[in-house]
């Protein structure tokens, strides 16, 4: 069976972004909204990773053995494009720190309102 992994990864990335946006817009529970933010970030990360992927390529980590065997040229030809991977690494860490701050804020809000429902928390702001 021959399936285009790259294409389906893009599709799944799009699905993750859509699911995340749905959760942010329509889910009432705060933890689920936060999961939605995480899913949007994951979807974008997957887009970047899939861009760097090269079908039939090798992992872009160079080793001493490659140098000594003189296969550096082959490495340059076969290796996946590693710039997007570096970007994803940064974004994963940023996403995790945003998530931690969000979770801390939601604990604080729960202690005040005794509820995780966004409709309840923002109730008095309905003018």
């Amino acid at each position: 069976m021959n399936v285009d992994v790259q294409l389906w990864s893009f599709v799944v990335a799009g699905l993750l972004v859509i699911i995340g946006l749905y959760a942010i817009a329509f889910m009432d529970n705060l933890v689920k909204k936060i999961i939605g933010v995480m899913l949007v970030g994951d979807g974008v990360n997957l887009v970047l990773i899939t861009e760097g992927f090269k079908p039939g390529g090798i992992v872009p980590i160079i080793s001493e053995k490659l140098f000594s065997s003189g296969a550096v040229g082959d490495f340059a030809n076969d290796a996946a494009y590693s710039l997007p991977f570096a970007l994803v690494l940064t974004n994963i860490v940023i996403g995790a720190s945003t998530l931690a701050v969000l979770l801390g804020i939601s604990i604080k809000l729960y202690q005040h309102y005794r509820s995780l429902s966004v409709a309840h928390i923002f109730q008095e702001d309905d003018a």
Partner: protein
Amino acid sequence: MIIEIAILFVIVASSILALVQRDLMRAVIIIGFQGLGLALLYQRLLAADVAITQAILGSALIPGLMAITVLKTRRYQE
């Protein structure tokens, strides 16, 4: 090929399943599987270094933080 398709399916299914749970602790555990699936997928897509980070953060640290939040607040969605 079939492995990647299975992983992709697990990722989508677990993100949807996590969002429909009323028990938030169960949702957090399921989202851990999504993180793990993403890590495996990154490995299959030749991003080994990202896969390590994602495996630690996505399947342990983030679900852990969320579990702490759920323990400190309420377990069932009102």
